[in-house]
């Protein structure tokens, strides 16, 4: 799983039937320095995350299929937690 920052919500009318009704958020991966790293992920949100939130993203389709109980879903990234705090040992 990775840490990421929610940038906004993604709206799509034409989409895969398994994504209908799903809340999709654009999440940019963040490093431990807090900086944004790399290409944003379009994630399915199951924890009511909002823009600006630091979130934990399960970036793997097998896990998403189990959590969503949907063998046909093309979801590859699932927001599984809103992170309150990250403590790093020095």
């Amino acid at each position, binding site marked *: 799983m990775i840490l990421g920052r929610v940038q906004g919500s993604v709206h799509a009318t*034409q989409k895969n039937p398994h994504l209908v009704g799903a809340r999709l958020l654009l999440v940019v991966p963040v490093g431990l320095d807090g900086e944004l790293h790399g*290409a944003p*992920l379009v994630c399915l949100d199951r924890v009511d995350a909002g823009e600006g939130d630091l979130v934990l993203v399960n970036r793997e389709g097998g896990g998403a299929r189990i959590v969503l109980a949907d063998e046909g*879903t093309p*979801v590859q990234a699932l927001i599984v937690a809103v992170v309150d705090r990250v403590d790093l040992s020095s």
Partner: protein
Amino acid sequence: MLMGRVTGSIWATVKHAPLASARFVLVQPLNEEKQPCGEVFAALDTAASGPGDLVIYTTAYEAVLPWKELHPAVDLAAVDACVVGVIDRVDAGARS
């Protein structure tokens, strides 16, 4: 899933049999500023996307699933990227 921009269509008459009716597009991956990042690649289109569209695409095994569902007779198709949605808009700034 990731965000990209459709930059073209690919036409192929001779195709791997399970992909006989497939439509392929060229996709440019994008960063959070919707600027190109990385190499353009080919993807199966299952969302009726067209050139210029901002799209959601999926890779790996998840790229095969939409096609499998549209064509139940197909077991697995040799596809590693698939467009699954056309983005109307990305709302940012509503809450932060």
